[in-house]
């Protein structure tokens, strides 16, 4: 439980209302309430049950013991007063007034012992509702006093250490990759027009490699793209790759003099990642 006793104002009595900044610590003994306070007064109640509870409690009465005639008189006087002030009164207040009047009249009517047994105390339902309301009203007050985050207690945190958050890398199956490709193929006929053949795939790989080996700023000697130990097939594949790259305008060949060395240069600055 929070014990914020420091913050409790040092005063004899709590103000029950503030009217134009002035604290009012005592309710007038009669029912008269300064007109300015009425609206505030009404706002202070959470409905007719709350107002009734207030009327009962301020007279030190027990709910089970309510003098229905007196409470009804007081309640209706408040309601009348508010209506005179033309305050917007929730319909529930009027319904309660009617209910009280009805209970009062039933209490006044002489009843046979029989019917009393049958119907019980005409106040019973009202008492039940008042008690029921009061327990939740109290519960609400108690919830309000529970140590609350951001008011009475605060989450404690420290800076996390510098760390590489291990990215759990997603697993991909080659099968999934192929299935995905198949989907594309099914969707697209574009592959049929220039279907990539087995050799072409290898040429494509070599194209990537050649492109990775040259750049736009300097010349790479054509012959360095080939490696004799790759054998004839390797040389052919590289050569096809170079031709394909030229065709796709990705590289250009430069020969400054007849029979001079041939240089390869990327058409556009090649970025390496």
């Amino acid at each position, binding site marked *: 439980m929070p014990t914020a006793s420091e913050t409790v104002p040092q005063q004899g009595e709590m103000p*029950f209302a503030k009217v134009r900044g002035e604290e009012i610590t005592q309710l007038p003994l009669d029912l008269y309430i300064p007109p300015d306070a009425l609206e505030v007064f009404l*706002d202070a109640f959470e409905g007719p049950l709350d107002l009734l509870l207030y009327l009962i409690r301020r007279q030190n009465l027990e709910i*089970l013991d309510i003098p229905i005639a007196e409470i009804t008189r007081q309640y209706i006087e408040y309601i009348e007063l508010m209506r005179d002030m033309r305050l917007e009164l*929730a319909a529930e207040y009027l319904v309660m007034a009617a209910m009280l009047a009805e209970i009062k009249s039933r209490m006044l009517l002489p009843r046979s012992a029989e019917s009393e047994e049958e119907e019980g105390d005409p106040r019973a339902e009202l008492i039940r509702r008042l008690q029921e*309301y009061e327990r939740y009203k109290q519960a609400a007050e108690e919830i309000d006093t529970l140590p609350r985050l951001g008011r009475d207690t605060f989450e404690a945190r420290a800076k996390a250490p510098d760390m590489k958050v291990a990215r759990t890398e997603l697993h991909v199956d080659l099968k999934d990759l192929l299935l995905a490709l198949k989907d594309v193929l099914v969707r697209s006929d574009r592959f049929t027009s220039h279907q990539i053949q087995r050799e072409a795939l290898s040429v494509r790989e070599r194209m990537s490699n050649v492109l990775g080996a040259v750049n736009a700023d300097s010349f790479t000697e054509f012959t360095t793209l080939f490696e004799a130990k790759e054998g004839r097939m390797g040389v052919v594949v590289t050569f096809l790759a170079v031709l394909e790259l030229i065709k796709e305008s990705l590289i250009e060949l430069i020969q400054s003099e007849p029979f001079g060395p041939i240089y390869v240069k990327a058409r556009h600055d090649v970025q390496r990642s």
Partner: protein
Amino acid sequence: MSRDPDQLKNIVEGALLAAGQPLTLDQLLGLFLDEERPSRTEIRAALDALIADCESRGVELVEVSSGFRYQVKTAMAPWVSRLWEEKPAKYSRAVLETLALIAYRQPVTRGEIEEVRGVSVSSHIMKSLLEREWVRVIGHRDVPGKPALYGTTRLFLDYFNLKNLSDLPDLADIRSIETIERELDFDEADGDDSRAKALAEEPEQIQVAMPKEATETAVQEPQH
């Protein structure tokens, strides 16, 4: 796996403070790889040791609904709350009463809340409770109109420092006419004034408080 108990304690402390939100026992276990994973008993022991370590400190390690968390002790609140210019949100009685009814009577419909409170519950109130994620719709009553049934969330419990609903303050008993007569000549004056204090702390929230006599009688209430 044998492990320095201090290391385990330190890992748990570091994780709870770095997380900045409650962590469950399972989440704490999840910090360890299979081969180094301590048992639940070991983690529990580390938590207990950490709780004991807080005794004379400014923070405490508590278990709330969604797990364990470090929090600043309420005794420090008057100073620590000055870190923020904004005053913590205050909730109107209408909000608190509606929340209390949902907390204690869940699952409950809006109609049932209105019945007890004797006034209609504004949509605004329900909306703000739902937005705060203190309350959620947990179903619909199978009656015409299929009204939504409301219940509270873990966040609600976390926010109010509760581990579960049974930690809520006890509801006052409904007393029958017979019991009251026995009680009437029983304890008059010794109420706890904490409620009166709570009221006094928040005068602007409650614009009108009870006059003194009324407060005192109300104070006699819940005995817990």
